[in-house]
C-alpha cells in the first residue's frame, strides 16, 4: 500500500503539471492526424502489374542487401529481355473486384529470348513455371500472397512466337492487404498524395508513416518525460518536504525506487496512450493490425527508464532539476554519439573484412577512435539498439509480418540479450548509486 501511495503521489504530481496535458494533447493530435490518413485501394491490375515487373518486391527487400543485388541484376536482365512477366489480364474467382481479399487468376505473358525457346516451353512448361514461382517466392515466403497454381494459359492471345501466357491462380492471405498498392491521402481523402497510379504497397506506406511518427513522437515524448520527471525527485528532496517523508516508516531506498517507478509509470501511460492510439486508428482505417507495434510501449519506456535513472542519480546528488535535465540530455546525446560512431566503425570493419583488405592497409580495424567507441559501447546503455529495435518492430508489422522474419533480414544483427543486459545493468548501477547516496545523506 505504501508503494502504491508513492506511485499515486507521483501521478498526482504529474497531473498537476500543465506539461502533461500538453503532451497528451500533442499525442491525441498526432493520433487524430494519423486517423485521417486514408488509403484508397488501387485496382488489382496495378498491384499485379507491379508484381509482374518486380518493382513491388523491392519495397519488401529494402533491408536485404543480397536481395537488392538480385533485383539490380534482374533489372539488368529485364532491360535485355524486356519484361520477364507482363500482366495481360485478370479475373476474379471469388470476392469483390479489386479487393485484396479476393481470389484471382492473373494472366501474365512471359517473353522468351527466341521462338524456339518459347516453343519448347509450350511443349514442356515446367521450367517456365518454376521461373514464375521463383519470381513470386519472396512474396509467398513473407506470407503476403498464396499461389494455388501456375499453368500455361489455355488461351494464348498473342500469336507472336516469343511470348507465352501463364495463368497464376492467387489466394489472399492476411498479409495481402499490406502488399496491395494504394493511394494515400490525408484529412479523410481531402488531400491525396502521389500519382494516381501510385505503385507503392500499403504496407510500405504504413511503415514509412508510423516509423516517422514514432521516431519523432518518441523523441519528443522522452524529452518531455525527462523534463517533467526531473522535477519529481528534487521536489521530494526539498528541505521541509523530505523530512516529512523520511520520518515515515519506509526505507529510504524504497522511497527513491518507488519515486523512480512513479516517473516511469507516468511516461509509460503517455507512451501507451500514443502507441495504442496509433495502432487502433491504423487498424481501423486500413485493416492492418500491427500487433508488434504495441511492443514499442515497453521498448520506449525502457529507453526512458535509462534516461530517468541518470536523472534520479543526478537529482539525489545535486537536488537540482535543471542539473538533472542537462546531464540526462547530455548523456542521451553521448549514448547516441557512441552508438553512431561504434556502428560506423563496425560497418566499415565488416566491409574491410568482406573485401579481404590486408591488415596493414585497414583504416577502420584496430583504429584508436573505434577502440574507444567500442569500449564505451560495451559499458554504456545501448539506446541506438533500442531505436533500431523500434524500427525493426514497425518493419516487421508492415513489411515482413513477423519480428523473427524481420530479424532474419536485419542488416545490423544485434545481440539483444547483451544489449538489453548492458542497458539494464546500467540502470541498476545508476539506481544503486542513487540509493546508496540517498541512504547515507543527511537532510
Amino acid at each position, binding site marked *: 500500500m*505504501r508503494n502504491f501511495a508513492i506511485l499515486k503521489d507521483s501521478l498526482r504530481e504529474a497531473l498537476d503539471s500543465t506539461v502533461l496535458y500538453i503532451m497528451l494533447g500533442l499525442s491525441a493530435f498526432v493520433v487524430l492526424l494519423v486517423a485521417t490518413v486514408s488509403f484508397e485501394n488501387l485496382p488489382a491490375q496495378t498491384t499485379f502489374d507491379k508484381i509482374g515487373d518486380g518493382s513491388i518486391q523491392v519495397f519488401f527487400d529494402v533491408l536485404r542487401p543480397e536481395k537488392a543485388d538480385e533485383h539490380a541484376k534482374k533489372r539488368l536482365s529485364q532491360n535485355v529481355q524486356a519484361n520477364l512477366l507482363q500482366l495481360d489480364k485478370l479475373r476474379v474467382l471469388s470476392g469483390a473486384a479489386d479487393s485484396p481479399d479476393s481470389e484471382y487468376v492473373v494472366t501474365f505473358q512471359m517473353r522468351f529470348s527466341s521462338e524456339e525457346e518459347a516453343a519448347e516451353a509450350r511443349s514442356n512448361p515446367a521450367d517456365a513455371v518454376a521461373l514464375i514461382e521463383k519470381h513470386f517466392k519472396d512474396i509467398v515466403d513473407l506470407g503476403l500472397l498464396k499461389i494455388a497454381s501456375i499453368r500455361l494459359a489455355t488461351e494464348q492471345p498473342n500469336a507472336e512466337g516469343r511470348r507465352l501466357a501463364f495463368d497464376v491462380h492467387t489466394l489472399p492471405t492476411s498479409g495481402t492487404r499490406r502488399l496491395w498498392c494504394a493511394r494515400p491521402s490525408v484529412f479523410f481523402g481531402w488531400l491525396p498524395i502521389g500519382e494516381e497510379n501510385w505503385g507503392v504497397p500499403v504496407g510500405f506506406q504504413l511503415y514509412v508513416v508510423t516509423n516517422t511518427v514514432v521516431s519523432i513522437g518518441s523523441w519528443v515524448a522522452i524529452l518531455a518525460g525527462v523534463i517533467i520527471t526531473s522535477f519529481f525527485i528534487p521536489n521530494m528532496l526539498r528541505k521541509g*518536504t523530505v523530512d516529512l*517523508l523520511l520520518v515515515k516508516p519506509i526505507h529510504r531506498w524504497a522511497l527513491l525506487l518507488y519515486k523512480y517507478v512513479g516517473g516511469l509509470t507516468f511516461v509509460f501511460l503517455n507512451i501507451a496512450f500514443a502507441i495504442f492510439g496509433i495502432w487502433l486508428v491504423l487498424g481501423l482505417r486500413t485493416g492492418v493490425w500491427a500487433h508488434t507495434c504495441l511492443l514499442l510501449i515497453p521498448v520506449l519506456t525502457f529507453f526512458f527508464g535509462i534516461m530517468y535513472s541518470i536523472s534520479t542519480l543526478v537529482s539525489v546528488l545535486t537536488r537540482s532539476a535543471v542539473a538533472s535535465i542537462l546531464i540526462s540530455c547530455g548523456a542521451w546525446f553521448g549514448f547516441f554519439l557512441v552508438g553512431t560512431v561504434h556502428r560506423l566503425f563496425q560497418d566499415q570493419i565488416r566491409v574491410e573484412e568482406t573485401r579481404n583488405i590486408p591488415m596493414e592497409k585497414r583504416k577502420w580495424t584496430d583504429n584508436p577512435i573505434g577502440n574507444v567507441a567500442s569500449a564505451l559501447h560495451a559499458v554504456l546503455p545501448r539506446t541506438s539498439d533500442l531505436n533500431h529495435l523500434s524500427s525493426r518492430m514497425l518493419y516487421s508489422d508492415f513489411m515482413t509480418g513477423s519480428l523473427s522474419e524481420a530479424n532474419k533480414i536485419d542488416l545490423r544483427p544485434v545481440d539483444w540479450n547483451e544489449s538489453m543486459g548492458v542497458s539494464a545493468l546500467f540502470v541498476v548501477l545508476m539506481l544503486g548509486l542513487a540509493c546508496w547516496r540517498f541512504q547515507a545523506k543527511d537532510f
Partner: protein
Amino acid sequence: MAAIITTNDLKKNYRRIEALRGVSLVVQAGEIYGLLGQNGAGKTTLIKILLGITRGWRGQAELLGHTAGTVAMRRRVGYLPEDHHFPDYHTAFSLLDFYGQLLGLSRAQRRQRIPVELERVGLVPRMHTKIRGYSKGMKQRLGIAQALLHDPDVIFLDEPTDGVDPVGRREIRNILLELKDKGCTLFLNSHLLSEVELICDRVGILQQGRMIREGDIKTLTQQKGRFLIGLAQGQLMPLADLQSRGYRIAPLGERWEVQLEEQQSIDPVVDLLRGLGLSIRHLVEKRQSLEDMFVETVQEGNKGNASLLDLRERGRG
C-alpha cells in the same frame, strides 16, 4: 516512568563544524520537553538525529527504546519540521491520506482519522482546497494535523506556532496540553519562550552544540535568595536596621527586594518586621521569566566560551 528519549554524549559533525558536542538528555514518558537555544545551537540537528533524518552521529541516541532512526520506531512518532514544505499539488485531505498510507493506516482508519484531525486544527472547511492556496498559519495547522494523524506516542514539534496568530497559538497550546493529558510525550523546539514556559514541564538549553542548562521550569526560573516584601500602606521599611544586620535591600516599585547572602535566611527579616509591629502584606520568593533565565544563561555561556577561547589562544601562544 519510562524514558522515551535518551541521548548520551551525542556528537555530530557537519564536516568541520561541530553541531553537537556530547549532548546528554533524558525525556520521560508523558513529559513536555522544551529544547531552547539560539539559531544554530543544534536543536534541529538533535531532533533530526532522533528521527533518523540525519545520520553519521556518535554516542548514544535512543527513541522509544530503539536506536534512533530505525524504521519500526517511526510508526510511533509524529513530527512537524521547521520550514516544512508540503507538496502544493495536494489538498489537506489528500496529503493526510498520502501520509496515512505511508504510515500504514488502513483506508478505514484514514477515513475516520483525517476529518477528526483536520477538525481539531480547524481546517475542515478548506480540506479539499489545494495547499498552494493556504496561508502560512493554515499550513502550520496542517503540519500539526499530519503529526497527530496516526496517534503517535511521541511528537516532535519544531517551532509549532511559527506564523500562527495569537488565537491560533492558544488553540495549538490547548491541543498540546490535551495530548499531554492523553499521555503523549512532546518534544518542543521553540523560540517563543512564553509559550514554552506555559506548556513545558522541563527545558534544556543548547548552546553551540552543548547542553548548558536543563531542569524543570520552576527550578530554572527560581531566583535563590531573592524575596519581594510588601508592607501595609503607609508603613516604612526599617532600612537602617536591616542593613546593619547585613541584609541588602532595595526598592522595587511599591515593594522591596531583599537579597540574601549565603547562609542568610529570610526568617530573621520577617521576625524583625513583625517585632517592629509592621504588617507584612506580601512575601514571595522572586522568580525570573523563562526569557530572562534563557538570556542570562546564554550570555553566561558566551562568556564561558569566550574565556575558553582565550585559554586556547593563550595555550597556542
